[in-house]
């Protein structure tokens, strides 16, 4: 565990000292803005607006932070040659990637947790109280962050930050819109074989829509964090999915990175 923890804690430290915490200030401003203005003009729906917009902001910040800090995760180490001081010590390349990923996940989680506290605080100020669904929604965001960071780790292990950013962004869009894309395929292709092929291709992409069920018809049921939301069983399955998907992505990243010459 020594090398893994050392690398993870260093990555965490880098992200935190890299001023990612400043994003909390922006979040605070936005949440105050929502609480004081948007909720006011929402005609008795102030609680719902605060929760919906607050969780939406958390999700967006989670994605932005993951992509922006993750794009240069490995590239920067190679470009600045700091990797020479790490991989020449008894640490495996897969261990290095996993440590980097863990550190980044930890730092994004810290920021998101602080943002969540701000949201709860704003809710308390407005007298809306704490809704348990908020906690479930935040957990789903946390799971999605794991997947996004594993994807940036994979791309960052062999490409530049720009390409990593573009590819990850593309995957996020596809992953979030998968149900709509499947619908388009059903309408577009009449042949079952083509539908099956397209469906299988889409299965390769992360099912990110699972982590943002708020306001969507989910399994024929309308869910909302202010009303009926997903069950704990659902939370458990999505957690498992996120971990399994990230593990596979990380395995691919390790295979790509294993024999890469670090010139």
């Amino acid at each position: 565990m020594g090398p893994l923890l050392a690398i993870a804690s260093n990555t965490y430290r880098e992200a935190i000292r890299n001023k990612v915490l400043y994003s909390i200030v922006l979040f605070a401003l936005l949440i105050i803005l929502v609480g004081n203005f948007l909720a006011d003009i929402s005609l008795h729906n102030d609680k719902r607006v605060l929760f919906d917009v607050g969780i939406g902001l958390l999700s967006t910040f989670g994605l932005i932070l993951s992509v922006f800090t993750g794009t240069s995760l490995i590239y920067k180490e190679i470009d600045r040659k700091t990797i020479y001081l790490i991989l020449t010590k008894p640490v495996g390349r897969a261990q290095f990637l996993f440590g980097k990923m863990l550190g980044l996940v930890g730092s994004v989680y810290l920021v998101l947790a602080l943002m969540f506290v701000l949201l709860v605080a704003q809710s308390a100020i407005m007298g809306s109280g704490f809704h348990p669904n908020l906690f479930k929604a935040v957990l789903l965001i946390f799971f999605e962050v794991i997947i996004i960071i594993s994807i940036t780790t994979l791309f960052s292990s062999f490409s530049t930050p720009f390409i990593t950013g573009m590819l990850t962004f593309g995957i996020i869009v596809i992953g979030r819109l998968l149900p709509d894309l499947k619908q388009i395929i059903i309408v577009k292709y009449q042949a079952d074989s083509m539908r099956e092929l397209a469906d299988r291709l889409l299965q390769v992409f992360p099912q990110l829509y699972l982590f943002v069920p708020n306001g969507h018809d989910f399994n024929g049921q309308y869910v909302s964090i202010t009303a009926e939301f997903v069950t704990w069983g659902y939370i458990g399955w999505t957690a498992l999915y996120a971990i399994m998907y990230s593990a596979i992505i990380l395995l691919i990243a390790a295979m790509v990175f294993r024999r890469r010459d670090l010139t």
Partner: protein
Amino acid sequence: MKRDTDRESPLVITDLKKAFRTGFFKTRKINAVQGLSFSLEKGEIFGLLGPNGAGKTTTLKMVTGLIFPDAGSVSVFGKPASTVSSRRKMGFLPENPWFYDYLTAREFLTMAAGIFSIDRKVAKERIETLLNQLGIAHAADLPMRKYSKGMLQRAGLAQALINDPDLVIMDEPLSGLDPIGRRELREIILALKKRGKTVLFSSHILSDVEEICDRVAIVARGKVREIGTIDSLLNMGISGAELEVKGDEEAILTLAGELGLSTTRSMTGYRVGLPSNTRIQEILGRFMEAGIQILELKRHRHSLESIFVERSEKAQEEA
């Protein structure tokens, strides 16, 4: 038998080859290392000497597992260099070490100790010792972005020594340092040798290599062109010696003529050129018998620089 030797030797490199492909379509092939072989003996300081582009850094990167050979093998204390465990007893200082500039030297060393899974208490003591030994204790809690080149080099050496390695590898450790810094680093390298450590370093600063290395390998165009102790290299191909004599001019010239030796006039008398080592005793005896005073006998030795330049130029011509 060979395996036993390999296991004992800190480093054995056998017929190592590495080529890089460059250009947009990766069509241009550059053979950086072309069948390089040498091995280290325990407790020696070994210098890898060569001009820029000779393949020194590429070789060291293959030893430390940063890049992978196309052919050949590298074994560190009997373990293939591609394995994680081969780096357990090794310390590496890269050329111009780059650090995480947001970290202090103490934080970086703590992280390095963590990678080696060194016990916290032991690590703390070792970090303090290294910081003091290398003269950066005063700046240990400053972010390393504020360090000078010399301080970065010291921090780099500290991290290379954090695991008390048996084999210390340094890539151009002396380049860019001022004379005082170079002298201090030389002393550190010699102190490592005294503690039984094996040191391998690359350099093109000949005077430093000559001063501290037990053995050197001259590398050019990816091959070892010459290898041996400093003395054996300097004595190699000695073309003869020179005798400074004083006495009767006619006797000197006659005797030199008889022995087939060349003479030139000098400030004090005559300089007599001796073509080979084999006849020195005989010639000295003849001059002394003739009552000619011998002032000095000087052997012609190559300088490391001349060998270095000659081998590098030869490699260039071959290419």
